[in-house]
């Protein structure tokens, strides 16, 4: 095999490697959910479960649903964005608290 043919063959093989580099993460991206492997999906999702609880003036508490809040503010689960919206949506509440993976964050007064 001549050197030129060998070199051309090597170039085609290397082009195949590049196609493989591109295809593997694409397949992972399309067919799997985070956290993905082999797809260079790094720090993509928070992997955190958020829950909100409201406290009324008489001391009773109840879980709160963020589904009725305006989007995209309802998806911001840090800071005071969602607690402020929940306080506005439920005038009987005196405070809203949030848990991250079951761990309580501070309670925010309404």
């Amino acid at each position, binding site marked *: 095999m*001549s*050197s*030129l043919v*060998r*070199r051309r063959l*090597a*170039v085609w093989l*290397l082009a195949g*490697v*590049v196609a493989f*580099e*591109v295809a593997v*993460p*694409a397949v992972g*991206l399309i067919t799997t959910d*985070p956290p*993905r*492997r*082999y*797809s*260079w*999906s*790094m*720090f*993509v*999702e*928070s*992997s*955190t479960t958020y829950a909100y609880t409201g406290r009324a003036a008489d001391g009773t508490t109840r879980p709160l649903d963020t589904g009725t809040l305006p989007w*995209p503010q309802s*998806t*911001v*689960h*840090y*800071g005071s*964005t969602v607690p402020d919206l929940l306080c506005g949506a439920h005038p009987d509440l005196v405070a809203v608290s949030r848990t*991250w993976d079951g761990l309580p964050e501070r309670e925010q007064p309404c």
Partner: protein
Amino acid sequence: MLRLPQTLPARQLAGYRVLVGLVAGAKALELGASPLLGTAASPLFGVGPVLPAPVWLALGAVMGLAALAVVTGWHARPAALLVGLCTAGFVWGAGYYSNHTYLLFTVAVLLSFTDCDAAWSVRSRRGGGGDGGTERVWAPPVLVLRAQITVVYAYAAISKIRPDFLSGNGLASWARDSVLVPAAALVPAVLVPMAFGAVLTELFVAFALWSSRLRPAAVVAGVGLHLGMIVVLSDGLHAVVELGLFATLTCGGYLLFADRVPGAGGVVVPRQRRSEPALPGVLTRR
């Protein structure tokens, strides 16, 4: 239109080889010692027996020696392949998957395709000519490594285009454990622009590295991105080291995008290896 070079500088490739070797040495230490430090290895390839810790320690020792050979350039190509195989053993054999370990496997194997010991190596010193060794190397295998760097950044950006990341939730959940980020910074006015900025920066770095005009900005943006990751996402020394190793593998890859040696000019006639066929054009203007 993107013009791909026939040859590329050997020293930049050698520089990346040294960086990959250093990362491999650190990972050999970490992965080999992991079973002894409390991170038990999974059953062999997920289905076989659980191998005792000394087996993984021995594999780490082999990988460490191969990493040393990569750094010094002693039989660097087979040594890089051996690093890749050892890393594969840890990733798939022991179940120690992480994105940067997978990246180490990928670049080590791709490095073994290149003429990575053409400069700054035992071979180049034995060959005479100072430490310069061969000035230029055949480009296509290096272009594959370049493509790998682009693929990493591009997919990192694409996979972040989702509400959970762009809303800042991801950054908030990691940053609240960082000792370097004040709690007052964990507000949408800060984290939402940061999230969008991270995606745009990754896309910019992925493609701007290929443009000689945009490359300096891409290098600054990329290094800044990785420094930002270390500050925002690290919850301890281990995370700093891991993110630092990842940054070394990716930012080190920026060297591969240099088409010419800074400060050098004139005409260079690349020295051919006996094992390599002649280049189509041996006269290259730098």
